[in-house]
């Protein structure tokens, strides 16, 4: 024992005096003061020897406090902890089970290399202790030991003991044993290159399964979550067995703790996949709804997690909660994050039967105070219009009412939404165009301006003063933001193609301005393309610019099907809350012996399953990108677009484009045209550059590749934030 020659006065000196006092209560009081200093960040490590002297005591509370101190400094002063080992070992033989449990728990927590070798014997005894409290504490200690020194666990046969303890008479011991085995399993699987035969892998067998199902009904809520997690990993091909598991798990829906409910939902969703009996599936789904609804009466943070999971479940099972839209109505005092999720789910549940109630709610929300929420509500109105054809007119009327309020941000958001409705239902609501144009002066956000300009361009032939309206924008062209510039450019060209006689001058002016005075390469290049098209082949220009656009629709899912399945098997985890696979956001959060990070995977091939699913996601996104480029030509029902996209990667310049290494986009553009032209079996001239063009327009000019699948066009242009929307808008605006 090495005493440091500390200063002879000051707080620590006084504490040290008191710790060595002959009076018991004085010593205890001093320990409390030491802990208090420790928790406010003062360095009291110098008192280590003094505190240690107080470790052997009859007073349980004092013992706990000394242990607390030890745990705190074990990391920084491991060489001192060794002094405490004897007391630990002695305590693990104490007649009081609380002391035994405390000793074994603290030894597990210390995480000091030096102390580990002394743990084995006491742990051996504690695992066989008469008292269930000691046994369950010891079980968890095994997992910690494995984390630090796996070979010690294997050598001492602790694993076999744990497996025996699954049959323990006390459900809490069973629950903790399952937790320990799962922890060990995770520790192992998070290391690369583990053997699939490793004994530390926790594979649930039929025998274990039955024991788990029994313990499930008797242990604490936390134990239940752990057991349900193990059940979710159980693999079986036997349909009867799966039914049996589901039936035994369903009563857990009635637990008060939301975590248990979600864990049970997860088990059901996983084992339902192997069940083919329709009536059973229906029954499970029906029973799943009430507990989820009940979660919505919990505090807001629980509601949020529940809502995120409900959102995911609805994408797989749209029949869940069919008649329950009213429970998702937003309360005025709900926090914003809850309201936003509720909105999303309300639109998901919208159908012909409830659309009226939905719309009057949304209109109500659109007049609330919070700007973000108002905007999202207006977007939701647009989504409803696109989702339910028969309700579109009612939606448009609501939007017109909102525009009538003349609140700036309401008008602007409504404008953007109406543009999407025009896309979905072309030539249906032209009557409202004058109302929209009357609000021209109120628009100051680029997105809203661009939306109105798009509408003017699209319906140029029906708007008498379209040229006047557009010329206003042409005059201020250089001051506008790029999205507005792009839309103005396209709208003017559309106007020219529809009414050449009134807009000759305007189109000249804008092409001039855009090519000479504009500093955005996107705008300049688009202007060049138009100019060339218009001057070389006006018919082709018509074919390109006024081409029919593919219809938009609201997608049922926000994630791809492969990902959805992966996420559904992770219901009630961070992955399901973020709607992203765990790999994309969870790293290794701990240091030390690098314990568990990943959600436990059962076997090696299980892991590769995940990997495969992720690859599918990635591959799906790539192919979706390619499909995006096809949109325009495909809608002309010509194969050229597809052909063009397939040939492009073969040309070196295109490869440059894709790799993003090209220095001069114009060169690339030319070479793409060349590559496209080289295709012998392209049926018609105009469509071929079309395919190339769209590719060039998207990549060569530096705009990011969109990752939305084509079926999501509507969804992304309505729901997704502006950034992802732009490329698509550009693409569509171009034609």
């Amino acid at each position, binding site marked *: 024992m090495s005493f440091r020659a500390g200063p002879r006065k000051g707080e620590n000196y006084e504490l040290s005096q008191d710790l060595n006092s002959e009076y018991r209560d004085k010593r205890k009081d001093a320990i409390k003061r030491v802990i208090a200093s420790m928790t406010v960040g003062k360095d009291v490590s110098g008192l280590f020897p003094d505190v240690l002297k107080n470790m052997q005591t009859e007073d349980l509370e004092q013992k706990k406090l000394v242990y607390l101190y030890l745990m705190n400094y074990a990391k920084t002063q491991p060489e001192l902890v060794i002094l405490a080992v004897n007391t630990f070992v002695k305590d693990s033989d104490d007649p009081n089970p609380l002391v035994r449990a405390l000793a074994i728990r603290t030894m597990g927590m210390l995480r000091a290399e030096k102390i580990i070798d002394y743990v084995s014997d006491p742990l051996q005894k504690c695992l066989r202790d008469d008292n269930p409290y000691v046994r369950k504490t010891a079980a968890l200690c095994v997992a910690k030991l494995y984390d630090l020194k796996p070979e010690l666990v294997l050598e001492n046969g602790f694993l076999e003991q744990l497996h025996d303890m699954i049959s323990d008479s006390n459900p809490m011991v069973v629950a903790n044993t399952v937790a320990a085995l799962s922890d060990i399993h995770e520790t192992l699987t998070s290391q690369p290159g583990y053997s699939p035969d490793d004994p530390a892998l926790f594979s649930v067998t039929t025998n274990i399964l039955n024991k788990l199902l029994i313990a499930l*009904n008797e242990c604490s809520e936390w134990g239940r979550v752990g057991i349900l997690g193990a059940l979710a990993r159980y693999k079986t091909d036997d349909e009867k067995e799966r039914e049996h598991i589901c039936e035994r798990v369903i009563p857990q829906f009635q637990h008060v703790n939301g975590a248990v409910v979600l864990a049970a939902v997860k088990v059901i969703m996983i084992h339902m996949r192997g069940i083919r009996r329709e009536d059973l599936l229906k029954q499970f789904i029906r029973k799943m709804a009430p507990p989820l*609804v009940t979660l919505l009466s919990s505090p807001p943070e629980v509601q949020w997690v529940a809502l995120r999971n409900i959102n995911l479940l609805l994408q797989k099972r749209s029949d869940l909660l069919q008649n329950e839209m009213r429970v998702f109505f937003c309360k005025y005092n709900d926090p914003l994050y809850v309201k936003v999720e509720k909105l999303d789910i309300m639109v998901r549940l919208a159908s012909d039967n409830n659309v009226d109630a939905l719309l009057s709610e949304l209109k109500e929300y659109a007049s*609330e105070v919070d700007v973000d929420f108002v905007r999202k509500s207006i977007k939701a109105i647009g989504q409803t219009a696109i989702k339910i054809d028969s309700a579109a007119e009612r939606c448009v009327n609501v939007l017109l009412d909102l525009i009538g309020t003349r609140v700036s941000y309401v008008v602007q958001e409504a404008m953007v939404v109406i543009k999407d409705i025009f896309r979905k239902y072309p030539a249906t609501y032209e009557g409202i165009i004058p109302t929209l144009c009357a609000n021209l002066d109120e628009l100051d956000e680029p997105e809203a301006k661009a939306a109105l300009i798009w509408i003017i361009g699209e319906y140029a032939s029906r708007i008498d003063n379209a040229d006047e309206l557009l010329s206003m924008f042409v005059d201020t062209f250089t001051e506008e933001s790029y999205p507005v510039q792009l839309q103005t450019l396209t709208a003017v060209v559309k106007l020219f193609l529809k009414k050449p006689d009134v807009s000759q001058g305007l189109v000249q002016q804008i092409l001039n301005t855009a090519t000479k005075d504009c500093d955005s390469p996107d705008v300049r290049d688009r202007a060049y393309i138009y100019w060339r098209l218009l001057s070389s082949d006006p018919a082709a220009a018509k074919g390109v610019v006024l081409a029919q656009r593919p219809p938009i629709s609201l997608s049922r899912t926000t994630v791809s099907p492969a990902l959805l399945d992966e996420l559904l098997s992770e219901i009630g985890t961070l992955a399901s809350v973020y709607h992203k696979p765990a790999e994309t956001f969870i790293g290794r959060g701990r240091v030390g012996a690098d314990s568990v990070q990943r959600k436990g995977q059962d076997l090696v091939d299980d892991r590769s399953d995940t990997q495969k699913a992720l690859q599918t996601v990635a591959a799906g996104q790539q192919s979706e990108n390619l499909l995006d480029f096809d949109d325009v030509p495909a809608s002309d029902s010509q194969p050229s677009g597809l052909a063009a996209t397939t040939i492009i990667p073969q040309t070196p310049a295109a490869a440059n484009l894709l790799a993003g290494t090209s220095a001069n986009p114009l060169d690339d553009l030319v070479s793409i045209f060349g590559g496209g032209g080289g295709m012998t079996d392209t049926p018609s001239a105009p469509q071929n550059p079309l395919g190339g063009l769209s590719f060039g327009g998207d990549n060569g000019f530096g705009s990011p590749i969109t990752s939305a699948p084509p079926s999501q066009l509507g969804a992304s242009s309505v729901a997704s934030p502006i950034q992802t929307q732009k490329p698509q808008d550009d693409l569509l605006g171009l034609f």
Partner: protein
Amino acid sequence: MAIDGLIVLDNAGRPIVQTSFQSTSPAYPLIHIDAYSNALAKVSRPEDVDPVLYVAGIDDTKRSACCHVGCGGLRLLCPVSGDIDPLFALAFLRTFIDILQEYLGHVSASTLRDNFDVVYQLLEETLDSGGHPLTTSTNALRDIVIPPSLLNKLLSVAGANISSLSAASSNPFASPIPWRKANVRYNSNEIYFDVVEELRAVVGRNGVSLSNDVLGKVDTNCKLSGTPDMLLTFTNSKVLTDCSFHPCVRLPRWSRDKALSFVPPDGHFILMEYRYSPSSSANPSTLGVHQVPVPVMVKPSVVINESGGTIDVTVTSRLTTRAIEDFSLELYLGQGAGAPNFMVSGGGSWAFDPRSLTLRWEMANMPASSSHSLRGSWSSSVPHPRPARAFRTKFAIQQHTFSALKIDQLRVSGEQYKPYKGVRGRSLVDIEWRW
């Protein structure tokens, strides 16, 4: 499962209690505290912070999430890493708050500081360093952590040896029933049931409820000796839907004949929670028809002009026999609101909170079938003020439940005594009235 630890912040955002974070770097709790205060700085209302924050970590390999809940000016953070259920962490936080309340009575920064030794012991007992919640039932906890009591304090001041008292139970967790302490003894055996129902509704401009939910719970206080086995039956169990139960309730029995069979924990606990729907939810799409009648009538009229607005609200009780208690009505008056000038007729008092810009009208008691009103105006420094679109009213009704749930019988077996039984009903109402 990986709850990495728990941090308690005071209302200035400083950590006052935290677990030891054995297996993480010392910076780990700090970046979580940082993440929370950053998120807090971005929102206008503290309750708008996302409940699960993504924490990027120091480098790319240490990503995690931070779950948090608030309680009495405190913020409890729960850093989690690994793909775990955030609800698991949130549920644990709520449970921990409940335990603190049970132990300290009132949870605040100062009570935590005063009893830090107890709080630390509780943390050690409830959360394992590996992230597993351990003992969270207060029944079992009281065996291993002695609640701070006046007696303990007095004894320690007097210098008495309390270690003998501390060893409250020499054989903890020996009870075969995990939620009930073994060998409980009371002189008078009593059990009380509080049936508390809360009506939450949104009423539209036309006076029709848009959404209307009654949530009920049976709050139980059990002071019974030994190991009583109870059987509770209701005369009208049909009114109960979407029930969830305390783990002590035998679920098969409930699904067979709607009777609650259980061995109760000792002390306070919530026996069951349920939803009441008048039509026994036969066809939820016809909800408009089978609704719980709203016990008051609020007639709001709000006029907004260039520089303020006027309000005229009349509240009429529809109850004919019972009084309404603790009535309050609130309205957010919008940015720049000030100079409120109101008058109440029929009772109560109004107040305007200039910090939250909320007008509040309170009445301690509102006799049956009575009518009250609040009139007045306010001015706004912002042209065309945008007040909240809904009034919020809250009140309570004693001796009344919406479902009229009635306990038929309570049978106790396994013990010789005949307990004193008490049942009480109470309703809380929380309604939004749009104007």
